[in-house]
């Protein structure tokens, strides 16, 4: 299975119908597919934190929500993830291109990349690091339900080697 198709199929199986995004080059094919899908409302945002707020509002309106972003966006969103999403028990699927991992060519991505899993652990948020498209498909399609059960966002970290 294609690495991008696996994520897309997982989102569709999870019936995600509302997506906000800040782009990453590794997500560009997925963003195109989301844009072309008339069943999914896609709102590009200026900064990840506002995207978290938009997803909270969309959930109040009955949508199943996801954010597509680089892991750098996690850093831009931490307070909103805690004092909005966790506080009110809003589910959210976070699909992150995990930069700064093995094979990274841009040194600026490395510090945040190395800290990203530790930040999620410190936040007490569940996350998955699929190595193959099959694993990713399986993780994504179940993550929404898990997020609803936990009352917290659930993340999928897609390392450079994944693609």
């Amino acid at each position: 299975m294609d690495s991008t198709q696996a994520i897309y199929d997982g989102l569709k199986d999870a019936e995600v119908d509302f997506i906000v995004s800040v782009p990453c080059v590794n997500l560009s094919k997925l963003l195109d597919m989301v844009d072309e899908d008339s069943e999914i409302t896609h709102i590009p945002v200026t900064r990840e934190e506002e995207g978290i707020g938009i997803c909270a509002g969309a959930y109040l309106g009955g949508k199943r929500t996801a954010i597509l972003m680089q892991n750098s966006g996690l850093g831009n969103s931490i307070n909103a993830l805690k004092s909005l999403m966790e506080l009110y028990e809003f589910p959210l699927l976070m699909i992150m291109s995990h930069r700064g991992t093995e094979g990274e060519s841009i040194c600026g991505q490395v510090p945040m990349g190395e800290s990203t899993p530790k930040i999620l652990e410190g936040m007490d948020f569940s996350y998955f690091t699929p190595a193959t498209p099959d694993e990713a498909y399986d993780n994504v399609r179940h993550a929404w339900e898990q997020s609803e059960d936990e009352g917290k966002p659930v993340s999928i970290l897609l390392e450079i080697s994944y693609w």
Partner: protein
Amino acid sequence: MARYEAIQKIMESIDDELIVCNIGFPSRELYEICDRSENFYMIGSMGLASSIGLGLAVAKPRKDVVVIDGDGSLLMNMGSLVTVFANNPSNLTWIVIDNGAYGSTGNQDTYAQKINLVDVAKGIGFKNSFNFDDIDLKDVIRSDDAGFIVYETEPGNSSAPIIDLDPITIKERFMSSI
């Protein structure tokens, strides 16, 4: 006139609209003035009232959504002006109560004192960017473009108590009211 009276005035125009209200004293005062299931009170995440309102308005295009925001919170999430304008949900009306102060933390000055927020929104492209005193709120709520309204007030908080609803209750009763 301070924020409390401004919220009273706003609520005179509200029927079945959904309200997203800013963190701190704005939510406490709204809760005291007119608690209703259709009010979503923010308890954390300063700055995100307009973002929550945008997501809600896009998800529920047949419901009118009114955001009660503040100048300090707007300054924390200025990008939202761009995102709201670009998506232009006709059912969203974003009211900024501009008292030039971080009211809930002791009325420290905000930079909003130095700028004209109505002009900022017009500069981005908002067709409906007004001062509250110049409009009928219901007309803006019903218009075909997203609305941005600045309500200038004096700083100052009432004695409204802390909201005694837990966040899950606020969420669940809001969702069941839609």
